[in-house]
């Protein structure tokens, strides 16, 4: 298994280089280093000298990808791409274009993101699985039909609608929770109730339908028939056997998103004023801060790869038949 993990990690290197290159190209197609300097220095009274000085100080004075004036390997290494990318591979994210340490910011801002993402995941998982099992119990009845219609309707509604509707009902109309904001420590709970409720509700449609499909597939298998033949109750069959066997796709689906929980939610964090990594990324894009955009895309890619490796590993734990080689 160790060899497998090492091999997968080595595979990750060209992927990360590719992701970094694509991010770089996409960013600089839209923003030139001059644009970045103007964004940082402001609109008014900016001189070419000031722009050159800013580029020099922030490492954007060199050519983007190829330096014809350099010699040998320097043609590739004395470029913005190389100099800005190489340190990422040792997880040194460097400073943002405004001068802040990105690693420090990420370490601070991942906690608010997790504070929402973890409860949404856990509560959502529990609710969606329970509801899906209930639907499966009543399969091919009006309850099943009505539930599927409801779930499709919930899937069709924009996430933004849930947020605005939730804020309007619970905060503005009923005054039950603060409409937005965040605090640290125990004070945070009252700010988390609304985004967590909305996060769970907005995920019910897709989540429950997915689990329903998994359970329906399982329920037609031979072992279920055997269990019923033994005289087990339907609830025992569902919770004791079907759920256990459907855990493989559920677990793998959950494990792959676990690392990405750190990355936060772009829209929720913005609407609820949560200072997480989602709003960090959005702010960086808006302010053309390439250093942060590059770091967050790189981090996202790394976490996704880690998620996939963990998924593969989790197969071996939930299904002894699987061997990684």
């Amino acid at each position: 298994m160790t060899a497998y993990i090492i091999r997968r990690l080595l595979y990750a290197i060209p992927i990360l280089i590719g992701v970094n290159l694509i991010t770089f190209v996409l960013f600089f197609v839209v923003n030139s280093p001059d644009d970045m300097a103007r964004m940082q220095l402001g609109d008014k009274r900016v001189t070419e000298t000031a722009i050159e000085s800013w580029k020099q100080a922030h490492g954007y004075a060199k050519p983007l990808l190829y330096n014809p004036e350099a010699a040998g390997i320097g043609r590739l290494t004395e470029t913005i791409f190389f100099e800005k990318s190489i340190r990422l591979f040792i997880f040194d994210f460097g400073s943002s274009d405004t001068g802040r340490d990105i690693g420090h910011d990420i370490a601070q801002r991942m906690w608010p993101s997790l504070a929402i993402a973890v409860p949404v995941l856990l509560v959502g998982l529990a609710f969606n699985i329970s509801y899906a099992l209930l639907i499966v119990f009543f399969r091919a009845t009006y309850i099943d039909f009505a539930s599927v219609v409801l779930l499709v309707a919930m899937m069709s509604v924009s996430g933004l609608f849930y947020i605005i509707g939730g804020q309007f009902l619970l905060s503005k109309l009923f005054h039950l929770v603060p409409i937005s904001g965040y605090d640290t420590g125990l004070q945070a709970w009252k700010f988390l109730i609304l985004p967590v409720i909305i996060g769970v509700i907005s995920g019910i449609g897709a989540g429950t339908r997915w689990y329903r499909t998994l359970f329906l597939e399982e329920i037609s298998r031979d072992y279920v028939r055997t269990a019923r033949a033994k005289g087990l109750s339907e609830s025992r069959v569902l919770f004791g056997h079907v759920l256990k066997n459907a855990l493989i796709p559920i677990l793998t689906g959950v494990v792959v998103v676990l690392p990405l929980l750190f990355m936060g939610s772009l829209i929720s964090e913005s609407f609820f004023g949560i200072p997480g990594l989602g709003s960090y990324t959005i702010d960086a894009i808006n302010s053309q801060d390439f250093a942060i955009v590059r770091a967050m895309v790189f981090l996202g890619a790394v976490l996704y790869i880690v998620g996939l490796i963990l998924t593969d590993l989790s197969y071996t734990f939930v299904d002894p038949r699987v061997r990684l080689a």
Partner: protein
Amino acid sequence: MQRMIRWVLLSGLLVWLMAGCGEGVWNNPYPPEDATANTFYSSFAARPKHLDPARAYSSDEYGFIAQIYEPPLQYHFLFQPYRLVPLTAGVLPTPIYRDADGQQLPPDAQPETIDRSEYLIRIMPGIRYQPHPALALDDQGAYRYHALTAADLRGINRLADFTQTGTRELIADDYVYQIKRLAAPWAHSPIAGVMKKQIIGFAALAEALDADGEMTPAERVERLRTAVLEGVTLIDRYTYRISIQGKYPQFLYWLAMPFFAPLPWEAEYFYAQPGLRERNITLDWYPLGTGPFMLGENNPNLRMVLDRNPNFRGESYPDEGMPEDLVSGLLADAGQPMPFLDRAVYSLEKESIPRWNKFIQGYYDNSGIASDAFDQAVRIDARGEPVLTEDLSARGVALSTSIEPSVMYMGFNMLDPVVGGDSERARLLRRAISIAVDFEEFISIFANGRGLPAQGPIPPGIFGNREGENGINPYVYEWEGVQAVRRDLGEARELMEQAGYAGGRDPATGRALAIHYEAVATGPDDRARLAWIRKQFAKLGIDLIIRSTDYNRFQEKMRNGTGQVFMWGWNADYPDPENFLFLLYGPNGKVEHQGENAANYANPEFDRLFNRMRFMDDGPERQAVIDRMLEIARADAPWLWGFNPMSFTLHHQWLTNARPNQMANNTLKYRRIDTVQRQRMRLAWNTPVVWPLWIMGGLMLLVILPALWLMRRRERSTAL
């Protein structure tokens, strides 16, 4: 089944407990213990990028640092038009003019005879800095935190983690040091380019510092301390002199901006130490000033907190103002020591919906009005005046309106062969378009009526702007009774005909005249605006081709002069006509000189008059020169003068001295809060509505119990 019923009952009990817990409000975003604290609550939408006074230049940043840093001068809070008064300076400095031989000239000397102007600034003694670790001393009198080691920094993550703080008296050398910082290439000050042309020796110092090569941050501090800036001289502990090239009366306004606030070298030296930058403890993040407030918490992703500076000297509330201020109660606090607040908490609100709702709930003391909330806040009465809606009036909310010292204009690129140039054809074409584009309608549709159609580049409230019939642009408006009325479209069509574009046809092609409009379109809302602009040009038969792009490309087109028609704006640095008329000054052209004259307009007479006007003091003579300049510009029509935006701000009844001042940024010290009234109103407005929880609980029971019953029945049923 029984277990499930128990669970449902338990949930009901929890809801009941929640309903009964506490008598306060549930949606309060602040800690309950702060309910009656003397704290001002507001919000901000865009996080400040820089808090270093050498770099900060936007209103997002000035909103904070202007409460912390104190330049020598400030704007009077109440006087209109805007007036400079001393802040840390004892008196308003009067320039001394000298000729090339160093001989003093009389105050009314001709500008061309003046070689340099000297401003002698004497600051008040006894002003002290806020408590700060950079100024902390040990028992031997040495700086406690100026030689930090890795061991010292263990456990330090914020500035507040340093246990000791110190202070010292403000001295003139701190001002001198800061001006030298503006010249330092590593400070990236946006005004370095301007000051190179103004302050004597500034350019030489910048070049010398640039030539020094790589230095450590600590070496840079030492280098700046010993550097000589010819035009800025330390006279004594409390006095310094700034010498500028020639005559530049507007320089005094710069002295009211945070760029010229003092900075103790100790601050920069402290922050230059290794290990602090990695912890994001920098001068750009933790300011050090002498103002009424100091930054207690800097978390621009969540909130910014300003605490009262315990070392503040105690400035008094102004005892003079406009006649109407006496009636409106703005002079009720005359002579009282400021600040009145202990704390100010600004929360980040990126979205307008939560921001507006928190204001309505009483959790923000003041607010602007977002477009989508405008109808909830303001209606236009029978006289065409904006008034509050009944709902807000009932809540005791007050509306303040003021004209911003800004202009939003539509410019023609004067280098363009079709719309630009000095030919009569192009001039008539521009005038025709000026009549056709109905900015009154634009203001009504796209700005909710928050603006005044501009008659020229100078906004109302700035010297040079004339009210009434004498102030209108006669090429676009005519005076009817008591107001300016836009000229008839027929006149515009006649002008088109005279220009050779009868019916909007281009004689060269025989088709509709095609003009390109450079637009910055960022979202779906822009489509309506662009469609409206096309419609305005279509009134004359002109085919307006929209070239949408992002702001970067738009700026690039402006710099290269490849655009034809565009829309842009300018927000005043200072309330002087020079700061607007320079937008049309030839040597300030964007393409040729990288200046702010985006239309690249150049008229020799206008430029000559500008060079005269800029050195003149306000008075009838200057007004006459400005009148002539406006006449030239209106006749040439390089801009459609657009409109001057109006600022609408709301504040609750418990916030007083809240009048907006568009030039002064340090107005937090004037604000006063009636915390008892605020808390009373918050409780009244935010009583939790619990019945929906019961209904939700009931509905859940209605769904769950039958489901459980069905499950049970199904399990017990037999196959046959």
